[in-house]
C-alpha cells in the first residue's frame, strides 16, 4: 500500500513526493496534466512584493511579519522556510541543476562530451550563507523590468542587477518571443548600461518563427552548440555579460552553458577581474520567456528524473472523478479512465492541485468556488461582484485569486469550525488560501516550503 499519494505534478507535488520518498515512504504522484512549472520562469521567487508597498522586498525574512497571520509563510516561520529551501537546494545539486542565490560565487562543471548530464561532476555550490539568508536579488524580466527572485539556476545567475557589469542583450532573428531593444531600453531607463545585438540563425535553422523550446532542443545537438557558441562569443565585448532568451539547451544545457561561458570569458581574458580566486564570474545568462518556459521544463525534468531514481511513479492524465471516505479518513480516490474509474488507495493523501491556474479550484458563473477533488471548504469572496478589481494591474490583486483551502500548522485542510476535515489529508502549494502567489511573486517559495512541510507532516504521522 502507498504511504502517500500526491495529487498534482507541479513543483509542490513533485518536491513533496521527493521529500517523502527520500525519507523512505512509498509514494506515487497522479495528476490531470503537467504542472504549471512549465509556464513559469524557472526561478525560485520567494516573496517579491507585499501589499501596500511599491518597492520590492529586499529580504523576505524581514517582510514575513507584514503578511496576514493566516498566510502560509506565517504558519511556517522563517526557519521552516529556510530549511525547506536548503533541502530544495540540495536536491538541485543532486540533480545537477544547481539553484543558488544570485551573487553566490560558484564554478561550473568542466565541459564534458557526454550527453548525459547526470554523469557530470555536480556543480559545487556554496551552502546557504547565513549573512545572506533571505536576501532577494533582482533578475531581468523579458521587458527589462527587475524580477525579485530568491534562488536561480546557474543559467540565470549573471543577470543579477546588483552586479554593475555592462549588459548586452542578444535577440534571435525570427523569434517573436524576445525583443532585446525593449528590454535594453527599460534597463537603461533604470540606469543600467545595456546594449543589444541580434543573432542571425540562418546557419543553424531553415525556418523562421521558432519558439524558445524548439531552439533549446536544436541546441542540444553538439554541432549546433559549437556554431551557436561562436556566434554568441562574436557578439560579446570584453567585460560584458551576455543575456539571451532562455533557450540554451534542454538535456545538454549545462554543457552549452559551460562552453558559452568559456568562450565569452576567453574574449575578456585580458582583464583580470573576470576570474576570481574561488571560481569564475558567470558572464552568460538566460532571460525567461513567455510560456512554455525552458528553465521551467528543465526543473520539471530534474524533479522527475530524481523521482524515477527513487522509484516514484508520476502518472499524468489522471483526473480525479470521485473519492470515498469513512468518517475522517479518506479510503480511496478514483480517476477517470476509458472504461471504469480507477481506484487509488493510500494511507495518506497530499492535495497539490494548484489554485485557479492549476485547476485545483474552479469558480463558476454563479459565484460558487469549488475545490475540485474533495470539495473541501474554501475561503473565498462571497459573490462574483467581489472577485475582481477595476484595474488589471491593481497592486492589491484580485480577491478571487486568494481563494483557497485554509490549513492548520500541519497543512491539514480545515473545516469551518477549524478542525481538520480528514485525518489523512494534507494540502500545499497554490491551493492554499490567504495568499496570491502571483501578485506576491511567491509561487515557488510557497510550493517548496509548504510542500516540504506537508511531506514532513506525513513522514512524522507514519
Amino acid at each position: 500500500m502507498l504511504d502517500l499519494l500526491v495529487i498534482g505534478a507541479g513543483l509542490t507535488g513533485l518536491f513533496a513526493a521527493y521529500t517523502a520518498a527520500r525519507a523512505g515512504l512509498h509514494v506515487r504522484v497522479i495528476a490531470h496534466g503537467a504542472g504549471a512549472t512549465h509556464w513559469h520562469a524557472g526561478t525560485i521567487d520567494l516573496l517579491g512584493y507585499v501589499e501596500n508597498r511599491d518597492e520590492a522586498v529586499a529580504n523576505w525574512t524581514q517582510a514575513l511579519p507584514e503578511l496576514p497571520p493566516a498566510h502560509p509563510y506565517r504558519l511556517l516561520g522563517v526557519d521552516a522556510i529556510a530549511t525547506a529551501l536548503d533541502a530544495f537546494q540540495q536536491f538541485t545539486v543532486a540533480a545537477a541543476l544547481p539553484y543558488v542565490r544570485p551573487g553566490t560565487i560558484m564554478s561550473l562543471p568542466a565541459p564534458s562530451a557526454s550527453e548525459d548530464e547526470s554523469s557530470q561532476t555536480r556543480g559545487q555550490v556554496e551552502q546557504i550563507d547565513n549573512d545572506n539568508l533571505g536576501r532577494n536579488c533582482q533578475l531581468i524580466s523579458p521587458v527589462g523590468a527587475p524580477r525579485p527572485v530568491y534562488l536561480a539556476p546557474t543559467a540565470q545567475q549573471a543577470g543579477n542587477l546588483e552586479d554593475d557589469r555592462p549588459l548586452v542583450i542578444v535577440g534571435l532573428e525570427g523569434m517573436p518571443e524576445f525583443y532585446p531593444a525593449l528590454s535594453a531600453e527599460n534597463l537603461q531607463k533604470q540606469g543600467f548600461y545595456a546594449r543589444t545585438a541580434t543573432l542571425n540563425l540562418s546557419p543553424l535553422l531553415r525556418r523562421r518563427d521558432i519558439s524558445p523550446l524548439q531552439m533549446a532542443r536544436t541546441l542540444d545537438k553538439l554541432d549546433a552548440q559549437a556554431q551557436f557558441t561562436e556566434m554568441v562569443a562574436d557578439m560579446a565585448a570584453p567585460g560584458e555579460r551576455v543575456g539571451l532568451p532562455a533557450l540554451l539547451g534542454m538535456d545538454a544545457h549545462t554543457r552549452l552553458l559551460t562552453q558559452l561561458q568559456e568562450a565569452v570569458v576567453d574574449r575578456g581574458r585580458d582583464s583580470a577581474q573576470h576570474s576570481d580566486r574561488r571560481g569564475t564570474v558567470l558572464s552568460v545568462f538566460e532571460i525567461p520567456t513567455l510560456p512554455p518556459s525552458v528553465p521551467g521544463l528543465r526543473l520539471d525534468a530534474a524533479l522527475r528524473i530524481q523521482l524515477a531514481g527513487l522509484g516514484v511513479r508520476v502518472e499524468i492524465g489522471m483526473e480525479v472523478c470521485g473519492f470515498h471516505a469513512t468518517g475522517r479518513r479518506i479510503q480511496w480516490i478514483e480517476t477517470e479512465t476509458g472504461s471504469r474509474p480507477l481506484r487509488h488507495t493510500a494511507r495518506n493523501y497530499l492535495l497539490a492541485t494548484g489554485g485557479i491556474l492549476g485547476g485545483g479550484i474552479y469558480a463558476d458563473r454563479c459565484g460558487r468556488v469549488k475545490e475540485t477533488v474533495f470539495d473541501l471548504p474554501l475561503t473565498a469572496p462571497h459573490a462574483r461582484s467581489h472577485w475582481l478589481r477595476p484595474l488589471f494591474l491593481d497592486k492589491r490583486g484580485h480577491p478571487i485569486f486568494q481563494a483557497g483551502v485554509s490549513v492548520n500548522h500541519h497543512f491539514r485542510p480545515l473545516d469551518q469550525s477549524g478542525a481538520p476535515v480528514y485525518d489523512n489529508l494534507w494540502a500545499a502549494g497554490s491551493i492554499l488560501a490567504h495568499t496570491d502567489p502571483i501578485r506576491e511573486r511567491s509561487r515557488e517559495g510557497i510550493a517548496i516550503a509548504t510542500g516540504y512541510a506537508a511531506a514532513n507532516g506525513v513522514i512524522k504521522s507514519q
Partner: protein
Amino acid sequence: MKRMQTEILVIGGGATGTGVAWDAALRGFRTVLVEKRDLTHGTTGRYHGLLHSGARYVLKDPDSAVECISENRILRRTHTHCIEDTSGFFVVTPEDEDDYPDRFAAACRRLDVPCTEIPAASALRREPLLNPRISRVFELPDAAADSFLAAHATAQAARQAGATLLPYHELTRLHLSGGDGNRTLSGATILDTVSGEELHIDADLVINAAGAWSGHVAALADVEVKMILGKGVMLATNARLTNTVINRCKMPGDGDILVPIHTVTVIGTTDERVAEPEDLPIEQWEIDLMLTEGDKLVPGLSRTRILRAWAGVRPLYQETQLPGRPAQSENRAQSSKYPATKLPQDSRDATRALALLDHQQRDGLRGFITITGGKWTTFRLMAESAVDAACEQLGVSRPCRTADTPVPGVEQGHYWLGHRLNEVEDENLQSELVCECELVTRSMLEGAVQRNPTVTLDDLRRDVRLGMGPCQGGFCTYRAVGILHQLRAGNASSAAGEWNVAHMQSPAHHHRDSPTPEQQATASEPASVPTPQGDFRQRSAAVDPQAAVSQPNLLLRDFLQERWKGVAPILWGQQLRQERLDELIYLSILNADHLPVDDGESPLSSFYRSDSSISDLDR
C-alpha cells in the same frame, strides 16, 4: 495654429462619418473628416456585426425595415468583402407568441423583404446546435458584417476620392457667425489629441455624423439634438455556434440575436437607456440575461466559454416638438407610429430609422447638418441623405454615386471563415505568428502600423484583430509592443506611408493588391480638387510608428487594461483560469507592473481606465 480649408467637414469616424466622407468626396466636394479617437472607436466598433435584412423590424419599425433591405442589397455589391453571406433564420421557440410568425411573414411580403419558411427539421440539419424544440423557421437574407473592415474600406475609398481623414482629432469648438435669422456655421477648431496642437478648419458646411455623440456636437453649435442613447451589451463565445445568423421570431427584445462573426458567435443585445455615450457599465444581470436568453436559441450556450463582453450605444433619435417652434417634418423616415410630441421612455421603442436634421430649416443655422439614428446596415443611405441635404444647402446638384461604386477590396468576393489561415499559409505572408488565436503575423502587424495611425495597441486590434481570441491579449500584447518598439528603433522609412487598410482583414491584403503610395496618390487626387495634402502628410508623420510608441510601457499597460475591462465581466470557469495565466505572464514573468514609466500617463490612459464598471469593489 495650423489652418485648413475645405468644403465639407465631417465630424465622426464611424460607419456614418466615413460613409459621408466617401459620398461627399465622390460627388467632388473637398472633404475633411475628424474623429476624436481611432476610426470605428465608437458604436461602429462595438456592435454585433449583423447586416440586417430588415425582417427584425417589419412589424415594430417598418420604415427602418424598408431602409435595411434596400441597403442590404446595395452593401452586398459595394462592400462585398466585408460581408459573410451567412443567411439568417428567424426561429419560433416554444416561448414565442403563436400569432407573431404569421403576422411577421405577411409583413415581410408587404415590405418586400424576401422571406421563405423552411421546415424546422431542415434548419436543424443546417444548424444542429439550435434548440430542437423550435416549431417554425423563416429564412431571410441576413448576413454577418465586419464593421471594422467596412469602415476602413469606406475610409480608403474616401481617401482615394480625395478626402482627408484625421483620426485622433477632437472637435473642440464650432465657429458661429451672424445674428438671429442669419446664423452661419463657418468652421471648427480641432485638437490633435496626440500632439496637442490645435487645428483651425474653415468649412462651407459641417456634417455632424458623431453617432451617439451627435447631441454633444450639436450643443457646440447651440442647437439642441436630444439623442436617445440605448446601450446594448453583447457577448462573444469562443466558438462559432452556428453558421447562420439566428433571430428569435418575436418582437425585438433582449438577447434574441446570434451572429456568427469570424471565429466567434456574438449574442446580443440588451437595450438600456443611458445618459452619456461613454457611460457603458456592463452589469452582471445583463450578462446573465444574455446567457439565459441565448440558451433558448442554442441550449447550453450559457455553459460555453465566453471570451468577452462589451457595450455599444445606439444613437437613436426621435424628433419631438420643440418648445416655441412648429414641429418640423424634415425627417422623411419619421415613423408615424409615435406621435412626434411623445418621446419613448424605453430606448427599445425608439425608431431605428435614420434621422436627418437640416439645421437651416430646423433651427435657422446655415452650414450645419446632423445625420443620426439608423443602423449600421443603413450607413450608406444615411450618408446619401446627409450629402443630398448638403448639396441643397450649398445650392448645387450632384447625384450620389456610392450605391454603384464598390470600395477597394470587393474583388476578393464575400468574406469566408478560412481566409486568415489561407493568408498565413500563403507563402508570401509567412512570418512569425504574433497572435496565435487570430493568426496575426508579424508582417500583418507591421503593415497595419505603417498604413494606419497607431497610437494605441487597441488601434491595431481594430485593424488586425490583435488580442481578440481566447487568450485576450495574453501572448500577443507583449509581442506587439516589442515589434512596435523595434519599428520605432528601426528605419524611419516605415513611417508616413499612405494609409491603406482597406484590405487589411481580407485574403491577400496589402501585399498584392494595394497600389504603391505613388500610384495611389495619382489615382486619388482629381486635378480639379485640391486637397489639403500638406496637412495630411504632416498628420501622417505625427502618428507614424516613431511617435506612436514613444512609451512602449504605457502601450503595454493600456492594452492590458483595455482587454481587462471586456473580460472582467465574464471571468469565471476556464476564462478565469486563462486570465490567471495572463497574470502569471504579465506580473510574474514580465513584472509589467514595475516597469519604469516616464511621465505616468499617456493621453489615452485615462480613457482606458474610465469606462469600466465591473466590480462592486472600489466603486
